């Protein structure tokens, strides 16, 4: 009898049922937390490490980011008579080392995280898609 009361009194299961019922009825601070992604988006923090961005005026094309990239993601290519980094997002670790090492603080990482694409080629972000401050030059 003691064995039955110990094992089959089901007090633990009943306690569990109460907790789950609390969630169903939203009793006590138990809200629904889902963010319905394509319709609503979470705000990313200012430090978020997403797609790169390169300051066109600051970048000197020195290639330090290229050397320091662990996955050889970055290549320095020629664009509009100057040299700029080109990032292959498909291989990028988003570790932020390129941002850390940039001596001119030209490299930044933006909050853009929706980087999926249909082809491998379109994952290579050339300077035309990375540069900002374009209007300053003209």
């Amino acid at each position, binding site marked *: 009898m003691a064995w*039955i009361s110990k094992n*089959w009194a089901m007090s633990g*299961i009943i306690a*569990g*049922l109460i*907790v*789950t*019922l609390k*969630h*169903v009825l939203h009793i006590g601070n*138990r*809200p*629904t*937390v*889902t963010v*319905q992604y394509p319709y609503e988006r979470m705000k990313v923090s200012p430090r978020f490490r997403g797609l790169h961005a390169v300051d066109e005026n600051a970048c000197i094309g020195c290639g330090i980011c290229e050397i320091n990239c662990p996955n050889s993601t970055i290549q320095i290519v020629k664009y509009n008579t100057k040299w700029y980094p080109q990032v292959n997002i498909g291989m990028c670790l988003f570790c932020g080392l390129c941002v850390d090492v940039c001596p001119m603080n030209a490299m930044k990482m933006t909050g853009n995280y929706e980087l999926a694409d249909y082809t491998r080629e379109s994952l290579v972000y050339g300077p035309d898609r990375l540069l900002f401050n374009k209007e300053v030059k003209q």
Partner: protein
Amino acid sequence: MIANAYELIVYILTLFRVYEPLLNVFQALGAEYVLRIIIVLVEIAVLFVFVLLTVMFLTWMERKVVAMVQSRYGPMVTGPRGLLQPVMDGVKLIGKEDIIPAKADRWIFTLAPFIVFIPALLVFIPLPFGESLIISDLRVGLLYIIAISAISPIAILLAGWASNNKYSLMGAMRAVAQDISYTIPLALAAIAVVLLTGSLSMVDIVNAQGGAWFGVIPQWFIFIQPLGFILFLIASIAEMGRIPFDFQESESELVAGFFTEYSGMKFAMFFLAEYAHLFAVSGIVVTLFLGGWTGPVLPFIPVQITSLVYFLIKTYAVIFFAMWLRDTVPRVRIDQLLNLGWKIMVPLALLNLLVTGFLVTAGVMV
């Protein structure tokens, strides 16, 4: 007094003054039985459509309940609050490739989903959805239900064997062991109810629970048979194969149990059968222990409608309990399940039966 759905249809047709002319037409052709067959087909079609819609609703409800427990929304996109999600799921499953494994037993593999699906629908025939809302009030209704639901383990075994997959086979073996050991306490608990009513007919069982003590407390068998109710509920959850007793699938152990290899529409049939079974078993629990469709009679509303509403409310309460339990507890182990079945539930059910029989014979309970 309208006894079953056939007579109800006849009554409605008479009410709209179309039954007589129709009958005359068919009698003139000398084929009265054709009309009868048509009416029977209509009622069966109505039942099946109702059951299938309920099943689709249940899949939606299951996901919603799980989501609510887990602080999520569940399906939200298709239709209002995702209500059309089951339709989309159905469309998706129909569109899937129907894969038959190379070394599977093709015939049995194809046949098994049907053998699972058809009994799941047949169970509803003697189930009273409401006053006179019953396809056929079989005099052995309860026996019929228990017998029909005993077919599904055979189909599961066929499916598991024919898949030629070790996980499927193990799932099937578990399902059979589980079904056999839980049908016994299920039947024993039901027999205790039969002792009280003296009839296997589901309608009689419901009618026996129609009264009320002191005009307030309904005379449901749950109050007379609390132990029997608990045993029946546990055994029926085990019969349904839901957590905490979902050994036939036991996703994290046997991948998906006996339907590991199934895809497309065949998988959908297992899926539908599972939820049809859930609905049927909940309905049986309601009929046997929770007073079936009985409830306060309201004026101006046909008793058929109110009784159907009462029945559905009670059934959904039981279904909600099953879903709620599923979200709370882990799965027990197969040997623990069998221990529970044979060493605890069967003796308790026998004890319950003995006490009930004694009390009925002594005239304390009628």
